[in-house]
């Protein structure tokens, strides 16, 4: 159980910068999630903490020790890989016990600990099987077991659930949450699934790839709630939430936000520049009858999911997506509608820097 600090960490592969000036402090016992689109360097950052990649610059500290030059085996961190990385020719017991075998613990002691871990993970009946004869969820648990048995200071997870099917993913997610409640160790968890990020993390760090414009990868770090309700920039705003947040260019006209010349907001606006990017979450937009005040549009497509409808509406400002949770409403493609939103639900971003203004 340790804190982990990344200070100005950078990584360059073959002259291509992948990570730049990454500053993250993971608190002792915290569950931090790295999330971001594919290729943005999440795994790279995690692997640098594990010691599997060298740093190009910067410092990584685990507890109070600078570990830049410490071999992976000596950092006392455990990692669960996306592929589980189980030793296919070893039994479950040997897989779980491997870290202890390497340490040269006596056999009896290893057996005892393996049984204990297997017990908590409900793997006891499978101890003599090979990984090939396990289901996906069981393999996942073996990988967890191998990590747990070492009693590491830090747990690292690299998309541990992405190889599982939807149902299993949900139940293994719960399993990790339970595990986490039991052993209060620092955990860093990489995923690109926003549901996982939102539901599991104490805090979330949103990564973006380094492209023209981004001078660093870390877009925002904070609790799930902070990120969803007050995204720091357009990237984070659009990254979290399905359907995505609608972003349109708006003009300020007194207290109203005008979109394509129509008043979109219902009341007093916060401080904004004359022109800005307006963000509206699909569930925040209210659908009114045609002709009512607001942005007018026509329903292009209705996706009925049973418990909700996702309505795609063509407007002069482009397609706006609205989520209707009320099952009793039955919007019909082709209908004309008007759209409005409460001003306190608006997100305002700078059109140039794309940073949040309100």
């Amino acid at each position, binding site marked *: 159980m340790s804190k982990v600090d990344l200070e*100005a960490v950078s990584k360059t592969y073959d002259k291509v910068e992948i990570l730049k000036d990454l500053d993250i402090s993971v608190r002792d016992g915290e569950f931090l999630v790295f999330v971001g689109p594919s290729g943005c360097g999440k795994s790279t950052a995690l692997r640098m903490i594990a010691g599997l990649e*060298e*740093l190009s*610059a*910067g*410092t990584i500290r685990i507890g109070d020790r600078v570990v*830049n*030059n410490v071999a992976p085996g000596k950092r006392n961190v455990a990692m669960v890989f996306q592929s589980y990385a189980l030793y296919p020719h070893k039994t479950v017991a040997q897989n779980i016990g491997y870290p202890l075998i390497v340490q040269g613990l006596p056999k009896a002691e290893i057996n005892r600990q393996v049984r204990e871990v297997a017990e908590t993970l409900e793997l006891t009946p499978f101890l003599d099987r090979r990984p090939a004869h396990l289901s996906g969820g069981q393999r996942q648990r073996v990988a967890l077991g191998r990590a747990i048995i070492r009693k590491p200071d830090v747990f690292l997870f690299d998309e541990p659930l992405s190889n599982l099917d939807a149902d299993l993913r949900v139940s293994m997610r719960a399993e990790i949450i339970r595990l986490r409640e039991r052993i209060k160790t620092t955990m860093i968890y990489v995923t690109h699934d926003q549901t996982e990020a939102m539901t599991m993390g104490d805090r979330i760090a949103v990564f973006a790839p380094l492209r023209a414009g981004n001078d660093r990868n870390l877009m925002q770090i904070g609790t799930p709630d902070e990120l969803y309700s007050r995204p720091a920039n357009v990237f984070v705003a659009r990254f979290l939430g399905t359907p995505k947040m609608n972003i349109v260019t708006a003009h300020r006209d007194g207290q109203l936000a005008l979109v394509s010349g129509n008043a979109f907001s219902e009341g007093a606006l916060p401080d904004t520049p004359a022109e800005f990017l307006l963000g509206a979450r699909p569930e925040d937009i209210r659908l009114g009858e045609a002709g009512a005040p607001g942005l007018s549009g026509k329903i292009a497509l209705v996706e009925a999911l049973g418990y909700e409808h996702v309505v795609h509406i063509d407007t002069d400002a482009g397609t706006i997506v609205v989520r209707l949770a009320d099952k009793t409403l039955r919007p019909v493609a082709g209908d004309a509608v008007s759209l409005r939103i409460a001003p306190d639900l608006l997100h305002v971003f700078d059109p140039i820097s794309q940073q949040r203004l309100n």
Partner: protein
Amino acid sequence: MATVERHHMSIGQIISQVWRYGLAIFMALVFVFPFLIMLTTAFKPSGEIFSAPPEFWPRSWTLEHFGTAMTQFPFWRYLSNTLLISVLSVVGTLLASPLVAYSLAKLRWPGRNLVFITVLATMMLPPQVTLIPIYMMWNGLGATNTYIPLIVPAFLGTPFFIFLIRQFLMSIPNELIEAAKMDGASEWRVYWDIVLPIARPALVTSAVFQFVWTWTDFLNPLIYINDDKAYTLSIGLYSFLGSHGVQWGPLMAACVLFTLPAIVIFILGQRYFIGGVAAGALK
């Protein structure tokens, strides 16, 4: 701090770099050194070849041995003989082996497993067992002292290549074949349009193997070819030794000439070849 560390890392990197390349160069040298000797000996004047202790680098270079080799030994004729046999064998291999492999990998028919096991079994059969009867057979057909015994077997499918190509074909998704069938293609068309082009790495590997094997084959031409005009390079080289005593210079020059075409083929095919060798072995 950061820069210090970067510097520190790169010293470690340099050391590991030196170690890695040192090892690799050492190993490569062990393999290539004899070959270099062959080259330099071929270019050494006769007088220099026998020196004790031996010297690696020629003091003066000469092309004389190549001249000797090419005139005393009908190099061009042997070259074209060997090329003819090798090319025809390759053609035979490419025609026959993939057909059989396709049948074993992608067609479903009763007896297919039995045939596959037979292919595997024949791979293990020492050629000595069949050498004599096959010789008798060709002899009976009056085919000794022709290239027929050297070429025809390739047209009947070589177990090793059947195996290698079959393993490769197993990795082609059935869906591709099914898609083509849904598009209306016949079995033959599927084979020709879809399977063969996709199997190119395996085919190139087989072709390179077959070429090099035929090119360097010794025992078969030794047994079947009697007329020195029909010799292949390896038999020619062997008898060159017999008829000219050991003239190391010309001999090494002849070896160089003999080896070059195989190397060229290897370089042309190596992209596919290396992968293909492994593919055959791994599954």
